[in-house]
Structures are given as structure tokens and as C-alpha cells.
């Protein structure tokens, strides 16, 4: 199973995501894009969040605001239906955060 190495770039992102997930355990979180490679620097950190209700993206943005002013975090929000429709996880090789 793939895992994301912790480095100076990924560590604060992973920590904030971990904290946000405590408050919203039903969401699914994925990283994708260049952060999953060893190439540095990366232009931004790509994050996919699969949500169920319309208000959840705003809650996620609030929880992530602690790092978004420091790290170029690019978050894409999809419902489960949208993900099935686009096959986004498979297409991008996104890595689900456990």
C-alpha cells in the first residue's frame, strides 16, 4: 500500500487534515498530483475531499484555513456520485489518507 512520506512540505498538511477529519469523520480525503512524487518543489498540494452534504465543503475550508494561507493547497470537492461519474480517483491515482 502506498504511503505519503512526511517531509517539511507534507507534514503540516497531513497534520491539519488529521485534525479536520476528527470533526468530519464521514468525509473521504485523498491526495493526488505532484505531491505524491518525489519532485520538489511542488506548485501546490492537490487534495480531493468526497462529501455528502452541501454544507461540508465550507466546513472543510474553515478547518483547512490554518494552512491555506501558508501552503498552496488546492482542494477539489466532489460528491460520491461525482467521483463515480468522473472516475477521478482512478484517473489521477489519488492516494486515500487512512
Amino acid at each position, binding site marked *: 500500500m502506498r504511503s505519503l512520506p512526511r517531509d*517539511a*512540505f507534507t507534514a503540516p498538511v497531513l497534520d491539519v487534515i488529521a485534525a479536520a477529519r476528527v470533526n468530519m469523520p464521514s468525509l473521504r480525503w485523498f491526495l493526488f498530483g505532484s505531491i505524491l512524487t518525489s519532485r*520538489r*518543489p511542488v*506548485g*501546490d*498540494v492537490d487534495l480531493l475531499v468526497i*462529501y455528502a452534504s*452541501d454544507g461540508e*465543503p465550507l466546513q472543510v*475550508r474553515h478547518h483547512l*484555513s490554518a494552512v*491555506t*494561507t*501558508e*501552503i*498552496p*493547497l*488546492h*482542494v*477539489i*470537492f*466532489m*460528491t460520491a*456520485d*461525482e467521483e463515480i*461519474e*468522473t472516475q*477521478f480517483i482512478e484517473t489521477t491515482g489519488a492516494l486515500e489518507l487512512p
Partner: protein
Amino acid sequence: MTIATWVAERLKEAKDVEDIDVLAGNVIRVSRLKYPPFLAGIVSAPRVERETIQSLVEGKHEIEIIANIPKDSFLTGNALNLARGHEIAAGGFGDLLRVLTRPDVRSFVPAETAFIERGLGQHRRVARFRQLHDRLYQIYLRNDDQSDVVAVMLNEYELTAEHIRAARDRYGPFAIVVKTNPNGHPTKAAFEVAGQLSADVLTWGEFLSHLNSL
């Protein structure tokens, strides 16, 4: 760690960079291997207004580019006009990486902006256009009514319902959502939300054709 220090640490990892000096709280000097050094102003705001960058633009440092770090953010028209008036480029962290290999940093325009404005400028039905904010354009048409249309340009690979809602929250009303990224598709839910907002979702090509019908 300040945001400028964080940016400096990330830029040092780039192969075109010789060194980075943090000159002030939010100004860095980027020394490059191939081209002369340049100064960059670093800001970190979800919404960059004129006031956000005024001290940088009008300060003692000869800034050549302003980079706003949050990805989920936008630059208002007032901020863009202020930067443009002082011949200062504006963009995000990714744009800061892009200018590392450019001899002329000040003239940098994000590729998507250049593409959009070239297309609008060449369209026979477009009399003129105004960049209201970084992704929001007011397009004045050559017709008897001299009418205009407001369009938001979104470069998402897969355009989702939340992209549409977030754009509405950020930019206010628009009549057209233009998906400028030629890859991927708008989702069904994106079309539904746009419809609820009385907006059409069009690809770039569809948008150019649509302008002919207005």
C-alpha cells in the same frame, strides 16, 4: 516562520535558483543561475484587495512580481489594476516558480489569462472587455443594444457543483461559466447548480460560438 520564509525555503529547492534572501517581512530576493535576480512580494490572503498589496507596490523595494500563496484565493480587479499600473506581475506560488526561467519577470501574465484575453480580443462580436476580478470578465458586445455579459472562467479539470457554488460565493452573479480547461468535463451536478443560478456552463469553444448568438 513567516510566509516569506516558507516561500524562500520552497524556492531554494528549485534547480534554477541560486539563493533566496528574505529582505523584509514579505519581500524576497530571488537570485537565479541564468538570469538577473528579482524581488518578489509575498502575500497570503483569501481575497487580495488593492489594500492588501498597496504597501508592497508603493514601498521602497522594486518588486517585480507579487505572489499570493493560498491556492483557494483570488485577486480582485482593483488589486490587479494596481499591480498592472506599476508594471508588477501578479499571481500565485506556481507563477512564482514559472518566472524563475523568464528573463522579464514584470511582463509575466498567467498563460490562462493571456489565452482568454487574446481570444476575447480577437472575437468579432466583442467590442471590449473588462477584467472585473482574476477570473471574472465583463464582455461588451458589438450589437445594437451594446449589451454585455458577465462570465467566470474556471480552469478546473473536472468542473464540479462545488466549483460553481464557490465561484458564486466569491465573484457574485455571472451569466456564463466557461470551462477553460479542455480536459475533463463538468459533472451533472455542476450543470444542475449552474441552472439553479441561471448560468450556462460552456466550454471555451462553445462560449466563443455563444457570443456570436448574443
